[in-house]
């Protein structure tokens, strides 16, 4: 038994209603415990946190850090890596490359260095699940997992079209078992299949998908209901149709209403909140106000933002037709990768420029979302790393949320039309540290259904980040004084002092075993590998953490 006492810190633990109170945290064998009642109780180690800000470890609930798509991007962009600060080998830690798509070891150390102890990859094709797990095994320190692409899966679409909710539910459960994934993900449901079969896309949620006689609306509704019935810890995770298209706010609103009260998480909502005419970029604008109002009044919904930050990055998505669109718009190198029966993928390097009207509006629209959703428990911080920017931009975003003058300074240097096409200039709201702790820790943990994460009460993982209070908010969050993972000191003053292996979070919902025959029959007719070689064996997860269904 090893114990750690963190004394005298100023604690922000929103899940337990602690807003800047000074207190102690006790961690025994990696978990937070009640403070001992004896006055003279002592711990093996004590960390003096006097004067420091104490928060639970950060949680990134939507990023792209492992698997076929991410690794393809790494192979594709030596130009990006050439100028990026590398992660140097130390006596204890491996080396790696940085930039918009860091190597696996670098990813783990960089997240830890930022005070983040959990990160979830948002889009893995089932056929690439084994690959994703291999990479996650080489991603140190953080706890991690991934969401499984299902929105263009042929079996899913066939069962929805056939009106077979039982088979759909069994398949989703079987697929999560087989991949050792964490949640069901929809990416441009139906639209990616249209791209794969003929280079097209859907234009809205009521288009019919060629060959499958099913609409995005039916897929969304069917999977949302199945996920709810399975009692998965995280509801269906939706990347809506028409990402990035001017005028796509209507599709986003229809997607939200199509859920008919079922729980859902809408991801990188910033990219789905645009006004305008798809054929005329000058009409581009924000429609956050009405979308945020809908979210405010419908508590079945949560969102993460997908904040755009200025600079070079890499767009990577399971949305194949979006990749083609970005290639056409930017003229830059393009990867497209279609996975049989399951999914697509697009990768294009991208630069977000502050002098661009569209890019600055995207930046502003992201901030509008943070500021217009009333309840911080319903919105999580994300850049959709690396799509809107690197996760390393989180401290900068925090500073923008906590300081309205800072964002107005940026707007002052932006094209004048930006201020007219969104409400950001008029938004006075400034986040408190307590609210920051919600959108970066407590809320994503709750959205993911992780009762042991995102807080510092008894039973929580001993994941703690301690910051030096600083008027320069960005600097404060960029350089945590200490980072503790499961009771072990990992980062001391920006140096990784211990290399640990995090756990892989996955789910294993119950399902009807008799449904497997039907799945197998379809599989054997269609796939290019053997059915028995599809499921990911237990040995791929050295340190698994099975999260129970409800």
């Amino acid at each position, binding site marked *: 038994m090893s114990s750690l006492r963190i004394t005298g810190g100023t604690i922000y633990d929103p899940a337990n209603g602690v807003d800047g109170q000074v207190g102690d945290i006790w961690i025994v064998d990696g978990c937070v415990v009640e403070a001992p009642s004896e006055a003279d109780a002592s711990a093996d180690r004590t960390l003096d946190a006097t004067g420091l800000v104490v928060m639970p470890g950060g949680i990134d609930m939507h990023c792209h850090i492992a698997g076929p798509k991410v690794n393809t991007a790494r*192979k*594709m962009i030596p130009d990006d890596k050439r100028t990026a600060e590398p992660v140097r080998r130390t006596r204890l830690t491996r080396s790696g490359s940085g930039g918009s798509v860091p190597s696996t070891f670098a990813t783990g150390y960089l997240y830890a260095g930022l005070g983040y102890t959990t990160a979830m990859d948002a889009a893995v094709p089932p056929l690439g699940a084994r690959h994703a797990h291999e990479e996650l095994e080489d991603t140190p320190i953080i706890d991690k997992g991934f969401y499984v692409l299902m929105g263009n899966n042929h079996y899913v679409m066939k069962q929805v079209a056939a009106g077979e909710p039982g088979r759909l539910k069994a398949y989703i459960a079987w697929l999560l078992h087989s991949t050792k994934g964490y949640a069901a993900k929809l990416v441009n449901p139906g639209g990616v299949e249209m791209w794969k079969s003929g280079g097209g896309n859907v234009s809205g949620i009521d288009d019919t998908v060629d060959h499958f006689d099913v609409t995005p609306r039916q897929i969304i509704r069917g999977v949302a209901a199945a996920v709810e019935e399975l009692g998965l810890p995280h509801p269906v995770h939706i990347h809506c149709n028409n990402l990035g298209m001017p005028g796509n706010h209507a599709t986003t609103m229809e997607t939200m209403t199509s859920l008919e009260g079922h729980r859902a998480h809408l991801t990188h909502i910033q990219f789905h909140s645009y006004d305008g005419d798809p054929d005329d970029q000058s009409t581009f604008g924000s429609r956050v106000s009405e979308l945020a109002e809908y979210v405010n009044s419908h508590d079945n919904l949560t969102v993460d933002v997908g904040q755009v930050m200025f600079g070079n990055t890499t767009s990577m998505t399971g949305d194949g037709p979006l990749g083609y669109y970005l290639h056409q718009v930017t003229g830059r190198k393009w990867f497209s990768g279609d996975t049989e029966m399951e999914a697509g993928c697009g990768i294009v390097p991208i630069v977000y420029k502050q002098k661009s009207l569209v890019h600055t509006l995207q930046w502003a629209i992201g901030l509008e979302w943070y500021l217009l959703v009333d309840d911080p428990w319903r919105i999580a911080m994300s850049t959709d790393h690396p799509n809107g920017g690197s996760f390393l931009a989180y401290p900068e975003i925090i500073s923008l949320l906590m300081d309205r003058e800072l964002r107005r300074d940026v707007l002052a240097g932006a094209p004048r039309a930006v201020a007219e096409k969104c409400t950001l200039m008029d938004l006075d709201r400034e986040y408190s540290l307590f609210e920051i702790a919600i959108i970066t820790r407590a809320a994503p943990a709750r959205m993911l259904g992780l009762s042991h994460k995102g807080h510092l009460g008894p039973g929580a993982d001993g994941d703690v980040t301690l910051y030096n209070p600083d008027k320069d908010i960005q600097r404060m969050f960029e350089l945590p004084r200490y980072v503790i993972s499961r009771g072990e000191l990992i980062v001391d003053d920006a140096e990784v002092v211990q290399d640990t292996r995090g756990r892989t979070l996955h789910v294993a919902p119950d399902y009807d075993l008799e449904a497997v025959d039907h799945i197998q029959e379809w599989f054997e007719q269609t796939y290019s590998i053997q059915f028995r070689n599809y499921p990911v064996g237990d040995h791929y997860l050295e340190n698994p953490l099975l999260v129970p269904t409800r």
Partner: protein
Amino acid sequence: MSTSEASSATEASPEVRVIKDATCTFCGCVCDDMDLTVVGNRITKAKNACVLGNSWFLNHHIEDRPEALIDGEPAGYEQAMDRAADILLAARFPLTYGLSDTTSEAQRVAVAITDWIGGIVDTTTSVCHGPSGIAFQGVGEVTCSLGEVKNRADYVIFWGGNPAESHPRHFTKFSLMPKGEFVPNGRKDRTAVLIDVRKTKSAKAADIFLQVKPRRDFELAWALRALAKGLELDASIEETTGIPLETLQQVMDGMKRAKFGVILFGMGVTMTRGKHLNSEAILALARDMNQHTRWNAKPMRGHGNVTGADNVVSWSTGFPFGVHLGSGFPRFNPGEFTAADVLARGEADAALIIASDPMSNFSQPARDHLATIPIVVLDPKLSDTARIAEVAFTVSTYGINTGGTVYRMDDVPIPLRPAFESPYKSDLEVLRGIESRIRQRQLADPASDA
């Protein structure tokens, strides 16, 4: 590592066992539908295997060799791992090379070792489809898994390769014969084109054979790109490429009419004049065709897990091959940090060679240098490189004796189901032994910067 998967696959009988859904690692097809009949330490039947797979499985036997050789003398594993760690730790510029015929689990440890000792890690990619990797960095790639080809492709171009002999089941399992979801009549629904400098056995399988003049692949790809864009070409293109303009136009018309096309290209493209420029032209052609209909391109990878090597080196370092870790972080520069070039310049002062035989296929200057430096070799056979090694480990054969993961040429990871146990350690076990020795000594040495 996947022996647990293998146990359930065994139809138990004291003498004859059948391993179902085993995986053949001989070529990049990584066929995972082998039913292996195993009697003792021999595979007597490999159902579904092609001629290459049959030879791979049926000729496999456990050689009676020492666990290791040190300076040519028999030695045990422990002693050999100690000596290997000595060599690698003493080196100032160590090179790790090979890796394409071992599991991704072993590849991960090989990269770890190279990182800890600050060496170069390179794979056989640099001497096969390395130019395609470089081309990829220039223009990207529009590609798909082989099941997409099986289910959708109605126009298939094989370019600079002879799959009938190099990847014998590619036609029947993925690209030509199978009946797919959107090509229900199989071969009848597909048009097949072969482009090569000579009429190989693969020509019989194609509807159209285009005999390109040697070293004119680049020009041919650009001619097709021009036709794809609707530009007019001069009839002299026949003089340049060896193919009449009319034929090219017919092929382009067919390519545009197709619903789903794919170009599968081989080393005839990457290892001829132009190298990465040829790959880039073909990748760009497939990309351009998406303005008309769906087209994809894919390199036909050779070694069983060369694709895994690309993946492992990429996720560990950020770069696919030819990675220099000597400055304490990864740097990439093909030509500078690729094994054949490093050795030919006489630069490395020790080498760790895994599942590869550079002494039998590198240039004379590279071999000359390799013969002067201490090398550690892991190979199931006594290869030419193993013969001159200071430490040569005898290891078990992946896919036949050891489990693990292999990446098919389309990046699909597939588990291995070994047929029977070998008395020898796997690459993974030996490399872990070396890594732990290196780490123990580095951590015990306060002066070590690693």
